[in-house]
């Protein structure tokens, strides 16, 4: 699936990476619910690092929309919560 790192562009991620991101996303969602900003930021940083390290950056001219968007950890908790949906940052996609 295609993931956007907010403000930094899109990456294609493997199914395996998607699953690991989903786990971190659950933790991030829980941290946000618990108002635990350091915890949330830690999970978001981990998600960014994973996508950067293992994702494949899409070319600039690629026109596909993303399946998920990951906010950066320098957003405040309030800003992040506004962006977040009930299911977290990564949607539960049906397996392809």
């Amino acid at each position, binding site marked *: 699936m295609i993931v*956007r790192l*907010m*403000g930094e*562009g899109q990456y294609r991620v493997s199914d395996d990476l998607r699953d690991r991101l989903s786990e971190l996303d659950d933790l991030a969602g829980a941290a946000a619910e618990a108002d635990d900003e350091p915890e949330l930021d830690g999970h978001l940083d981990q998600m960014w690092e994973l996508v950067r390290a293992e994702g494949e950056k899409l070319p*600039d001219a690629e026109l596909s*929309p993303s399946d998920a*968007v990951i906010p950066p950890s320098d957003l405040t908790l309030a800003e992040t919560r506004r962006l*977040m*949906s009930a299911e977290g940052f990564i*949607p539960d996609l049906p397996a392809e």
Partner: protein
Amino acid sequence: MAGLMSRTSNVISAWISKLLDRAEDPSVTLDYSYERQREQLQNVKKGVADVVTAKKRLELQTAKLEQEVVKLEGQARQALGAGREDLARGALERKALAQQQLQGLDQQATDLEAQQQKLIEAERRLAAKVEAFRSQKEVIKAQYSAAEAQVRIGEAASGIGEEMADTGLAIERARDKTEQMQARAGAIEELTEAGTLEDMTGTGGSELDRELAQISASHQVDDELARLKGELGAGQEKKELEQ
């Protein structure tokens, strides 16, 4: 359901498909979409340019503030020379506060620099996508049936819409940051201005200016009094001697 960006691009692609449903001729809509994208790209370019300008202005302001902070020490020295430790303390306190604030401003400037670099890259990415849309729309017009074209256009347009929304949000955040920095710089300016020695005799001077001016004036008065006393005293002695 995903984050704001996906939702934003969904809104945009929904809007575009609605537009496409209404259009009789998909090729007309394609050209229209492309024109809209070019307009929005211009807005993004202007937004990025505004952030760059605001950042440059802040850099000049910060450099000036650093000079003002140095001046405060000179004032403290002057006040101390005049035997006014209270005034010297006040000037040094302001200097310390202003220095702390300046350090905070430096950190924000570093963050803004990074944001600015990302914005410039985002603008480049968006321009590449709009250009890709321009060439794709010609292919779509030439090769696909109206129904197929609609699907492809919808996807491409929502991809671009997402990039637009993401860049727009990044511009907004950078703009917020420059506003915070401007407020901070303004506060430092007030701190240092309360102590600047410019225009000592004028009406624009601060409390410290006026007090220092008073000291200097009262020193002058003391000196002159002493001189007059000296002259008078000398005159008196001369008189006494003559008698």
